[in-house]
């Protein structure tokens, strides 16, 4: 029997009725991609793979995990000790959460630097921010599941934030808890949602990619492709480049999993949750530290009407929400910071500001740095965070004189080699 013919016959039969193979070929193989993407463009596909790793390891953990306050901690220890390769699954999952955030943060910073949020990619950007919010909710609830001291107290602190809402705050908190404190009903629903949200993420990511494929990737020059000579087919060029990136990622990620699996965790989470004993320092996972710093920066009432706690909560959520507005705050038509001499510096300043916020978030606000109170540093860094979006970005986008843009993607790259445009067009014909 001729297997090859049979398979291709079946594929054609299906494709005629449901053009899924045409679709995949179109979107994953031929998909025309700018020829000049740098390695910063690897982080999107890495984020997708990180999600797949999280879902695969998560489902296997869920088969052994018990979402009950009396058994959750023990069931995780059983996974670590008695389940075949359970320690590996659990370390892949707990470190995977951290690496997912590292990858996504780099992916977002890439977007900020190269202006990927600008027309016509506003919806793509907004969907990205939705993904970030869903990820944060998922990771927060996942961290509660092992039911250690930090799990319990982080859950208590974060859910309590909603009590800052005027009038109905307390009622919201009771509703979230399913009782009068973080307890078994809370753990149960967090588990249910922690299992659910990653699949919602998959859906949103699908739409994110749909929006991406409408106009294709932005690129380090931030200019639109002028013709086929500016693009190359996704396969094999970017499939191999992404594979290389994936291999590097795995070396680093697995390096942590196998040789420093608890480096990014907090020791207190190896103490079973105890509602009667509050840890001296309650700190969230490292990827939430900047928001935590913003939350704690507000120790004063705003204009006598917004109490300090509510102010902190509003700013903390606002620090993400403001990303939704970015496409309209930045008026500059030029995307890439390469051609934006002023914006470029403020981008790095903003990045530094985020690191400072993270550092402040890790420390108790009562401390000080060479005599400067951490609280004050946190307040200034918070002010700058919002100032960056609300003042700096709109202002420079109006004042800045961008450098001249290259006329096409292949023009700057062609100058050196002196080849003709015809030669440059070859790759796209290869597909």
């Amino acid at each position, binding site marked *: 029997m001729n297997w090859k013919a049979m398979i291709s016959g079946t594929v054609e039969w299906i494709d005629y009725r449901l053009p899924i193979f045409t679709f995949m070929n179109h979107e994953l193989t031929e998909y025309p991609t700018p020829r000049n*993407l740098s390695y910063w463009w690897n982080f999107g596909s890495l984020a997708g793979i990180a999600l797949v790793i999280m879902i695969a390891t998560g489902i296997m953990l869920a088969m052994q995990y018990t979402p009950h306050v009396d058994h959750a901690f023990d069931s995780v220890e059983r996974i670590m000790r008695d389940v075949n390769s359970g320690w590996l699954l659990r370390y892949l999952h707990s470190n995977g959460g951290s690496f997912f955030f590292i990858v996504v943060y780099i992916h977002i910073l890439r977007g900020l630097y190269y202006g990927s949020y600008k027309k016509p990619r506003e919806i793509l950007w907004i969907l990205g921010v939705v993904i970030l919010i869903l990820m944060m909710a998922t990771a927060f609830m996942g961290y509660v599941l092992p039911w250690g001291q930090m799990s319990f107290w982080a859950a208590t602190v974060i859910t309590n934030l909603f009590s800052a809402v005027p009038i109905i705050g307390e009622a919201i908190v009771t509703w979230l808890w399913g009782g009068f404190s973080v307890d078994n009903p809370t753990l149960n629903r967090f588990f249910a949602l922690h299992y659910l949200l990653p699949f919602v993420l998959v859906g949103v990511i699908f739409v994110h990619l749909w929006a991406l494929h409408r106009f294709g990737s932005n690129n380090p020059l931030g200019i639109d492709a002028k013709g086929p000579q500016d693009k190359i087919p996704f396969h094999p060029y970017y499939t191999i480049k992404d594979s290389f990136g994936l291999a590097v990622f795995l070396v680093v990620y697995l390096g942590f999993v196998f040789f420093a699996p608890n480096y990014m965790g907090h020791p207190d989470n190896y103490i079973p949750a105890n509602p009667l004993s509050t840890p001296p320092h309650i700190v969230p996972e490292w990827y939430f530290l900047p928001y935590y710093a913003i939350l704690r920066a507000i120790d004063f009432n705003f204009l006598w009407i917004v109490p300090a706690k509510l102010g902190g909560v509003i700013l903390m959520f606002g620090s993400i929400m403001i990303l939704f507005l970015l496409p309209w705050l930045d008026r500059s038509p030029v995307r890439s910071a390469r051609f934006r001499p002023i914006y470029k510096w403020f981008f790095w300043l903003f990045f530094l500001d985020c690191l400072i916020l993270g550092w402040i978030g890790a420390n108790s606000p009562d401390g000080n740095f060479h005599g400067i109170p951490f609280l004050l540093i946190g307040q200034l860094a918070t002010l700058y965070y919002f100032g960056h979006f609300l003042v700096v970005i709109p202002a420079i986008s109006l004042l800045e004189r961008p450098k001249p843009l290259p006329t096409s993607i292949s023009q700057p*790259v062609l100058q050196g080699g002196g080849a003709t445009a015809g030669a440059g067009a070859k790759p796209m014909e290869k597909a």
Partner: protein
Amino acid sequence: MKTLAKSAARSATKYALGALCGLMLGTASAQAAEGVKLPEQDWSFDGVLGLFDRAQLQRGLQVYREVCAGCHGLRYIAFRNLADLQYNEDQIKAIASEAIIVDGPDDEGEMFEREGRLPDYFPSPFANDKAAAASNNGAVPPDLSLMAKARFGGADYIHALLTGYEEAPADFEVLEGLSYNAYFPGHQIAMAQPLDDDAVEYADGTEASLDQMARDVAAFLTWTAEPKLEARKTAGIWVILFFLFVTGVTYASKKKIWADLHKDDGSKE
């Protein structure tokens, strides 16, 4: 133009990686800052290749059983797990049989006591936290199974704690029933100094100095906290080598596949 863009991208990469490292070091130092500086010890399980020292784990078990077990449980360790310490089955059965396990109910509905067996877990010394607190000045001696992962510093901390009992400074007032300890947060601990020279007589003839026993029991508790450490590291070496190889292969393929593009225009990727 081309080289400029290239160097810009390069320096951006450098900054970002530097900042990321900075962030991680930052959290690490913030963590260390939470207590007194711990003296760093050399451990056989340090580093990428470091594994446990079986003789040391056996000595540590002896210290635990003869001293710590009076107050501290080890609830995640079953006697069968002691096979990891290279005891043979008869030895483990002998160790287990010395433990008294409450079992039941029997056919009359009564709980009864029996000798420990391989699948049993180390029994806790107190019936419940209230009983534990009542016999220890109101403080509950925590279970030690995960202690080495539940404190900053791990084994270093346990060793420091056990050797850190000293005279309180003149201006420091120690409350009734508590002891001064240089490394315990707040310096007042409800555990009286549990170890002193020759608190045990080692089966293997090693001299039982305070430092030696503290070291051995800290190593033992590192094993109880992370019994899969050796499996993890030995597998890790191969996994990392494999993916380094994959990195090399994909890099070479990438170079080759992109070569025709670069030939066209001499561009960077």
